[in-house]
C-alpha cells in the first residue's frame, strides 16, 4: 500500500503527460511583459514578434509529421481536431449534396469517443456511418475499408494508435484504399505522434489530428493537418476573427503554441532513443505481469506503440483490483465505478467477455518512467491479484 504523503507511481502517460521542464520554460517566455505576450494578429512589434513565435512553432509541429508548415491548423486539442475534420467534412459534403444524397462516413468501433461522438451526432443529422469491427487483435483490415467505401463516402476516419490498447493501424495501406476511391482519410494520431515515425510527405493521409499533452507538452493545444487538396472540402466549426485562414477563429494562444512546438521538436530529436527505452520498459512490465499467471495481453503483440500495455486478469474483479493498487496511478478499461458497470467498448469489440474486459488495466509509460517503477508496479499487481484470487469463491 502507498505510504501517506507519497505520490503514486505515474503509469498513465496515455491519459496525459507532465510538461517537460524545457517546454514549460519556453511557454513562460511567452506570458509576461518582457516576453512574447502579444496577439499574433496585431500589427505592432509585439504582435509581429508573437506571430514569428507562432510560425516557428508551426514549422516545428509540421516537421514532426513531415508536412509543410502551411498545412497545420491550430486547435485546442485532438478532440477539436477530430470534430473539425469529421463535422467540417460532413457539413461541406452536405452543402455539395444539397439534400439529394446522404454523406457516408467510415470509421471503426474502437475509435476514441472524440471520433465516435461526432459520428453519432452526424447520424442524427441524417448522415450514414459504417463502424468497422477490428479483428481480435484490434487491427482493421484495409480490405474492410475498401469494401465499406461507397459512392457517397465523404470520409474515412481511423485512429493511428488506439488509446486503450496501443495497437497501430496500417495507415499507409488504408490510405492507399482511400486514394483508389478518391475518398479523404482522417487519422487521429494523438497517441502515435512523436512515438512512431509519421511522414506525411509519403503517407496517403488528408487530415491528421495532433495534441500536445501526450508529448510532454501543455494541455489545451493541438493541431489538424489539412492537405492542400482537401482544404476546400472542410467547413469551419468556429467563426470569429478568421484566424487560421478562416478554418479556426480565435486568438492564438502563443504560450501554448510555443510549448507544443518545442514538445514536437524534442520528440523528433529524442524519438529513436526514447522509443527503444520506453519499449524495453514495456516489455519488462509485460514479462513481469505475465509471470503472475493467467494474464492476457489485449491487442496485437508487436504492431503497437512503445508505451501502452493493456492486460486482463480473468477471474479478478476490475474495480477491486484498481482500488487495491493505491500506489499506482493508471487507468482501468473497466470504467467500472459506483455509477456504471460498463466494460470497455474497445475490449468488448475485440471479443473479450464483459468480466475479462472489466478486469483489464492500461499501463502507459513515458519520458519520465524508470525501471524501478516498473518493478514496483509488477510487485503491486501481483500482490493484489493474489489477494483477490485468494478470496474469490
Amino acid at each position: 500500500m502507498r505510504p501517506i504523503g507519497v505520490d503514486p507511481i505515474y503509469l498513465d502517460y496515455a491519459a496525459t503527460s507532465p510538461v517537460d521542464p524545457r517546454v514549460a520554460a519556453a511557454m513562460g517566455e511567452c506570458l509576461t511583459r518582457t516576453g512574447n505576450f502579444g496577439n499574433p494578429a496585431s500589427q505592432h512589434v509585439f504582435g509581429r514578434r508573437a506571430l514569428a513565435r507562432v510560425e516557428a512553432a508551426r514549422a516545428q509541429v509540421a516537421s514532426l509529421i513531415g508536412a509543410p508548415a502551411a498545412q497545420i491548423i491550430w486547435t485546442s486539442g485532438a478532440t477539436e481536431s477530430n470534430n473539425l475534420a469529421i463535422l467540417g467534412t460532413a457539413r461541406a459534403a452536405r452543402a455539395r449534396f444539397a439534400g439529394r444524397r446522404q454523406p457516408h462516413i467510415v470509421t471503426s468501433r474502437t475509435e476514441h469517443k472524440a471520433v465516435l461522438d461526432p459520428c453519432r451526432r452526424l447520424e442524427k443529422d441524417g448522415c450514414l456511418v459504417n463502424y468497422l469491427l477490428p479483428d481480435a487483435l484490434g487491427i482493421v483490415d484495409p480490405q474492410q475499408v475498401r469494401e465499406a467505401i461507397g459512392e457517397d463516402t465523404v470520409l474515412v476516419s481511423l485512429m493511428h494508435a488506439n488509446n486503450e490498447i496501443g495497437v497501430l493501424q496500417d495507415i499507409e495501406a488504408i490510405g492507399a484504399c482511400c486514394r483508389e476511391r478518391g475518398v479523404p482519410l482522417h487519422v487521429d494520431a494523438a497517441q502515435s505522434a512523436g512515438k512512431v515515425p509519421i511522414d506525411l510527405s509519403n503517407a496517403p493521409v488528408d487530415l491528421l489530428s495532433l495534441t500536445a499533452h501526450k508529448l510532454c507538452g501543455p494541455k489545451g493545444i493541438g493541431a489538424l493537418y489539412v492537405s492542400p487538396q482537401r482544404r476546400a472540402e472542410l467547413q469551419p466549426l468556429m467563426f470569429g476573427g478568421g484566424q487560421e485562414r478562416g478554418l479556426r477563429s480565435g486568438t492564438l494562444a502563443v504560450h501554448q503554441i510555443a510549448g507544443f512546438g518545442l514538445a514536437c521538436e524534442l520528440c523528433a530529436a529524442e524519438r529513436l532513443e526514447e522509443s527503444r527505452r520506453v519499449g524495453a520498459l514495456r516489455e519488462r512490465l509485460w514479462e513481469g505481469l505475465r509471470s503472475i499467471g493467467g494474464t492476457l495481453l489485449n491487442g496485437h503483440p508487436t504492431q503497437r506503440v512503445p508505451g501502452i500495455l493493456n492486460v486482463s486478469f480473468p477471474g479478478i474483479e476490475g474495480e477491486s483490483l484498481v482500488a487495491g493498487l493505491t500506489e499506482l496511478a493508471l487507468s482501468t478499461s473497466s470504467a467500472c465505478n459506483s455509477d456504471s458497470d460498463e466494460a470497455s467498448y474497445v475490449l468488448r469489440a475485440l471479443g473479450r467477455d464483459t468480466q475479462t474486459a472489466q478486469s483489464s488495466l492500461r499501463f502507459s509509460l513515458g519520458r519520465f518512467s524508470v525501471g524501478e517503477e516498473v518493478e514496483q508496479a509488477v510487485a503491486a499487481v501481483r500482490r493484489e491479484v493474489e489477494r483477490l484470487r485468494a478470496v474469490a469463491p
Partner: protein
Amino acid sequence: VVRGEAGKEALGTRVRFALELAEDRVGAVRYRAYGCPHTLAACEWLARQLEGRVFTVGAFAVGTFAGGALEALGISTPLEWIERLGLPQAKLGRLLVIEDALRAALAQP
C-alpha cells in the same frame, strides 16, 4: 456449519458464506467473494457482525424460518448497510446478493 451462495461472476458479484452454528449462537464466519471493493468490505463487516450473535428466543431452529433467520440474529437490511458503511446507493444490488447468500446459508436444514 451451514453454507450459502448467491450471484454470478458474469453479473459482477458472487458470494459464498460459511457459518459455524453452535447451540444458540453463531460461531466462526468465513466468506469468499468475487465483486467490487464495496462487496468485499460489506462481506467482511457482516462476517464480523455475525460472529457471536445469539438467536432470539424461540427462533433458533435453522432451516425452519428461511425468511427470518437474519432478523432473528438482529442483522439489519441492505438499505441499512448502505447507511452504516457509507456505500453508494448504486451498490444496493450487490448487497442484495450478499443478503441472498446469507439467507441461503441460514435456510439450510
